[in-house]
Every structure is written in C-alpha cells, then in structure tokens.
C-alpha cells in the first residue's frame, strides 16, 4: 500500500471494528466450529474428493459465512484436468 493510500484510507471506527470482530467470533461460537476443526474438515474433504477427481488443493477454500439469523459452510473446490490441460496434475 502506497504512502498516499495510507494517508487517505478512511479509518474504520472502533464500533465498526467491534462489529466485524463480533460477527466473526459468533459464527464460530454458534456452530461450535473452531478454525482448527475447519482445517481438519478441509483436509478430509480433499481426501474424499481427490479419490475421484483432481482438485486444486492450493486454491481450495472452505469457510463459514453468516447472514441475518443463519450460518453456512461454503466450500470452493477448483477442479483440475479440464479439456485444456493435457496431463492433469496429480494431487499431492
């Protein structure tokens, strides 16, 4: 970030910071899903899916999101070896 960006970036107020921190912590509190458990989940999903298709493990993302009164788990799993790539990369 450039010097000028630093200067002109609007500072978030402490209440905005509080709100964002609360939203993150509550998503985890509510579903009793810690960041470590999320990591375990991610690795297990990779293992299961990799048996059948090659996936881009580096780019794979799994996260908890929230809205008014609900939480959901979203997994974004890019698949490797589409028609364009001659030899699909093997997952590690």
């Amino acid at each position: 970030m450039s010097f000028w960006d630093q200067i002109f970036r609007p500072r978030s107020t402490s209440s905005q910071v509080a709100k964002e921190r609360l939203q993150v912590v509550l998503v985890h509190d509510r579903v009793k899903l810690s960041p470590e458990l999320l990591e375990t989940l991610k690795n297990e999903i990779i293992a299961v899916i990799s048996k059948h298709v090659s996936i881009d493990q580096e780019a794979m993302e799994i996260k908890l999101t929230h809205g008014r009164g609900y939480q959901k788990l979203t997994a974004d799993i890019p698949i490797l070896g589409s028609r364009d790539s001659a030899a699909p990369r093997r997952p590690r």
Partner: protein
Amino acid sequence: MTGQVITITSGKGGVGKTTTTANLGIALALQGKRVVCIDADIGLRNLDIVLGLENRIVYDIVDVVEGRARLRQAMIKDKRMPELSLIPAAQTRDKTAVSPEQMLAICADLKQEVDFVLVDSPAGIERGFQNAIVGADQVLIVTTPEVSAVRDADRIVGLLEAAEKSPARLIINRIRPSMVKRGDMLSVADVLEILAIQLIGIVPDDEQIIVATNRGQPAALDNRSQSGQAFRNIAARLLGQDVPLMALKDTDGWLQRLGRFVIPRRE
C-alpha cells in the same frame, strides 16, 4: 386467570439485570399490575437493596424451599405500592440450595396470584441461570453495547433455543449516544444485526441510575428520569402497548464537544 413469568438474564455479569428487574417491577406496578419479583441470585442478594426493601427481610427463598416459611410469608410487600412484592435470595447459601423443580413449583404457585412474576437471574450459564429460566414464559436478555456482553447474549440466545423457550427479547442498556455518534460504541442497529433477535427496549447510560440505587428508589419512580422513562416504556410494551423507541439525547455538553474538536482523538 394466571399471570406470566418473565425472566431477566444476560450471560455476562454487571450489565443491568437487577436494575432492570427492579425498574420493570415498579413500572408494571405503576400500571396497576400485581407483580412479584424473585431474586434468583442466591448468595449474591441485591434486588432487595436496589428496590430499597433490604431492611424488611425476614424469610428468603431458601427458607421457603426448606420449609421454614410459607411462600406468602417470604413475600415482602413494597409500602410505596401495594401491587409490588419481593421474594429475596438467601445471602449465605449457594445456587444449589434451590432445585429447578422447586423453582418451577414456586413460579407456578405465584402465577395463580399475580399478573407478573419477574425473575432476576444471576450471571453465568450454570445452575443459577437454569433455575431462573425453568419457569419462564418469556425471557428478556439484557446486554450493553460492548463486545463481551453481546457475545454472551448470543450464547444465551442459543441456550434458550435449546431449552425450547419462546424467542427472547432484547434490552440494550447503558447506551451512550455521544459515543455511538462518533463511532465508538455499537449502535442499536449494529447489536440487532449481530444478534438477530427482537428488541423490546433501549436504556441510556444514566447517572440517575446510581443516584436511584443509592437511595433505594428505582428510577422508574422518577418522572423526570430518562432511564426511568425507558423502563416505563419497556413495561408498557410488555403490556402490549405500542410505544415508540425513545430518542436518546446526546448528553455531552458543549465543552466536551469543543474538546473533541480542538484535540482530535487518536485511535
């Protein structure tokens, strides 16, 4: 006709449960309703002193469950208003002195006699909290606009769902409009968006609460008190009256505002 049991709880300590219970008790009695307040904070008795009834205690709730007194004998009548009475907590025992079944029986019994049974819950989520909600027909959650209080309130929402209580309503206490305005305190809208439960009222942070507690004369008794008005509004909503949320006055004087203008705050 049977009354209803309303439990006032919070998770986090010190956010204003006892203050709320005392003021709602007074405000409902001012509307002519028969009210009994139960102090369920056994071992840390406080509702008596906030209500100004501490000198009149003979029996407490543990005396009732252990058979030393009948329920009626433990009910202290408020001399200011005949509709209001208090069942005090025991001071020298702990939360296990009353079982949930006993609490349920007491609530059921009182409901036959009064319009409202207000239960002042202790902080926490253990036995004392379980006792406080077991007989509840309605639950009010008190929070302040601070991260730890809101987080704990969310935990209570979850526990109440698990206990199959009907959806709780929220009271946001100790709001400081000047801080909200300058972005240094969570706003009512922020808290509601985070907790996603229904709001029943907001109460400003008010020096009058401390003065009122010093005297044992809850703010709801004082017509000029803003926080007193806030509690009277909540009582009216409990009675199904449609009262708009109060507009909280920015209580900072011109001097404080000038101070902020001249000396910008750092983060």
